[in-house]
């Protein structure tokens, strides 16, 4: 069985400061991991994906995430937050060979202040 834990339900940063959104996963198989972002009244947009290639994954809008198998983590980072980054972020796992079902974390609401 696969699961995802997002350690913070809310994160607040100042514009221009780094962002860290934490995610730990559990998977019986080799996982594929994703981060999706949801802006208000919009759908889920893919930020980045890890599928057993490079452990440091770069995504859109300056975001990146590092897959650490020893820590079962896939934290999302960005060096400098922008006001437009304010949204809800979901860490998602899918098991390779276990079908395409996505299992979502509970989400982290990112607030960016001036």
């Amino acid at each position, binding site marked *: 069985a696969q699961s995802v834990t997002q350690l913070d339900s809310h994160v607040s940063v100042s514009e221009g400061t780094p962002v860290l959104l934490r995610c730990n996963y559990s998977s019986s198989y080799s996982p*594929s991991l*994703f981060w*999706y972002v949801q802006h208000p*009244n*919009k*759908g*889920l*947009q*893919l930020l980045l*994906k890890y*599928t057993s290639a490079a452990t440091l994954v770069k995504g859109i809008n300056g975001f990146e995430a590092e897959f650490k198998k020893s820590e079962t983590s896939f934290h999302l980072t960005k060096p400098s937050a922008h006001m437009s980054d304010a949204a809800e972020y*979901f860490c998602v796992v*899918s098991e*390779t*060979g276990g*079908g*395409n*079902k*996505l*299992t*979502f*974390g*509970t*989400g982290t609401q990112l607030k960016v202040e001036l």
Partner: protein
Amino acid sequence: EPEVTQTPSHQVTQMGQEVILRCVPISNHLYFYWYRQILGQKVEFLVSFYNNEISEKSEIFDDQFSVERPDGSNFTLKIRSTKLEDSAMYFCASSAETSNQPQHFGDGTRLSIL
């Protein structure tokens, strides 16, 4: 960039009525999915569909639910006799051929059961 489109954006229905939610997946995608998000809760997998049949479904997807690909472009979710607890945001997604390909989501249909 091609996208998944969902209609309607908001559906209000009386309890006990049938409702059909519609989705147009990305044209060259072969895997189709429905997810739902009850207000304040995490996004949950409902069903996946490939080669004109259900490939996986969750325990939420009971006999009241059905999916169909009636033509080459549409993918529908039908709820036969709606209940109050079916009120949620319903997301359609599609992905390309392999299981490692990310799923692309529509903007969702907000279903309100009165």
